[in-house]
């Protein structure tokens, strides 16, 4: 049985932890609103970009000379996986979920005997992956110390990927990130960006060969597709930022609640043992008096 003093210390320590988690929850809630806002504001750009690319790729007649970003290199041997995680922990399963999704995919690739290359964005993902896949990581990048991640940073990463692609370092590129569904649900996503797949079907699709292009379709695609990579990465950043805050908020809410439960339990134990020691002292006094 711990002494009364020990219990008292324990209670106050749990209480101060609770204060911290509560503060973190509030901060995450405030940041979440902003992150969600910018994720929503960023959506039109990537949606419209998708639409244009869809229209363009539908009307391409000369498929042989089409951009490699659209049709791929014709091979499927080297896979580049871009794992986008946060730079901070204490956000529940946020980072782990992305890594789990990525690891499953890595195993599948390696089983098929293909070459795997990893590009980690965000320090938490790098920490989790470097133990097992350390020798596969060819690039890493984190944004510690950045207040806000802007399009410029996404472009920087996009340009790196494009450079690697132009040097024929890989054939297929996938990005891993968390898609923000709502505050409690974030879905880890694997999205293939080179070659492009799964373009959303839209009602506009029916209007094939309807646009006028200036210059040629292929020339526009050559110019547009590299830019689309940065756009997709930026979209992943925005979704990730919102997911991170949502995930942290839920995690910290749980932590606060658990700390509250613990404080209640400890307080009961504390009161019981206090009562026990009082009773014990009384018995000693009474029995002392009786023996006289």
């Amino acid at each position, binding site marked *: 049985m711990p002494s009364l003093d020990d219990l008292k210390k324990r209670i106050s320590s749990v209480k101060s932890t609770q204060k911290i988690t509560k503060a973190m929850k509030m901060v995450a809630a405030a940041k979440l609103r902003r992150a969600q806002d*910018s994720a929503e504001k*960023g959506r039109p*750009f990537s949606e419209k970009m998708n*639409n*244009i690319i869809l229209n363009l790729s539908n009307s391409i007649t000369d498929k042989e000379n089409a951009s490699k970003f659209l049709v791929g290199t014709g091979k499927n041997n080297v896979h580049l996986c871009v794992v986008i995680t946060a730079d901070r922990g204490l956000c529940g399963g946020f980072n782990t979920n992305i890594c789990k999704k990525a690891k499953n995919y890595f195993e599948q690739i390696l089983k098929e005997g293909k070459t795997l290359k990893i590009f980690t964005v965000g320090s938490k993902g790098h920490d989790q992956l470097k133990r097992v896949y350390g020798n596969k990581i060819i690039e890493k990048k984190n944004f510690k110390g950045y207040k806000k991640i802007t399009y410029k940073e996404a472009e920087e990463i996009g340009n790196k990927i494009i450079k690697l692609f132009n040097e024929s370092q890989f054939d297929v590129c996938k990005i891993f990130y968390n898609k923000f569904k709502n505050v409690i649900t974030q879905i880890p996503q694997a999205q293939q960006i080179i070659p492009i797949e799964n373009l959303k079907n839209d009602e*506009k699709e029916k209007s094939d060969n309807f646009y*006028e*292009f200036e210059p040629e379709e292929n020339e526009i695609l050559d110019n*547009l597709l590299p830019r689309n990579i940065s756009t997709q990465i930026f979209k992943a950043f925005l979704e990730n930022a919102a997911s991170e805050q949502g995930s942290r908020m839920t995690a910290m809410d749980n932590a606060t609640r658990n700390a509250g439960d613990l404080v209640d339990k400890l307080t009961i134990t504390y009161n019981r043992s206090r009562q026990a020691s009082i009773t014990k002292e009384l018995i000693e006094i009474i029995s002392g008096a009786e023996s006289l």
Partner: protein
Amino acid sequence: MSDSFKFEIVNPEKIIFSSDVKMVTLPSFEGEMGILKGHVPIITFLRPGIITAEVEVKKFEEFFVQDGIIEYFNDNLVILSASVENVKSLSKEFLDDLNKNIQDELLKKDITDNDRYILNHKLDAIKDIRV
């Protein structure tokens, strides 16, 4: 307002400008292009320059772009660009910096004709803004 159409400028972070306009003049890659309502659907990309939108008669909004892609479809004009600024909000420092960068780039020996074409247009656009 039967002769106006919807015009939007979108950057990766937000929608910068959205309004009904009468006419838009934009620097497409192969030359200046004026778009009025009922233009044929078109997709093209931009070279550096100034986009002028006539919101109402004799009332203009001007934007400086360095690159971007445009789509006109069904009386909707959309410009997607990562580098677009309202001319009114451009600072002198920004223009000076850009000007200096371009001059440096132009002096490099290994630039292609295409790069040079784009850089020269940037210079012209900056000059236009200053006047």
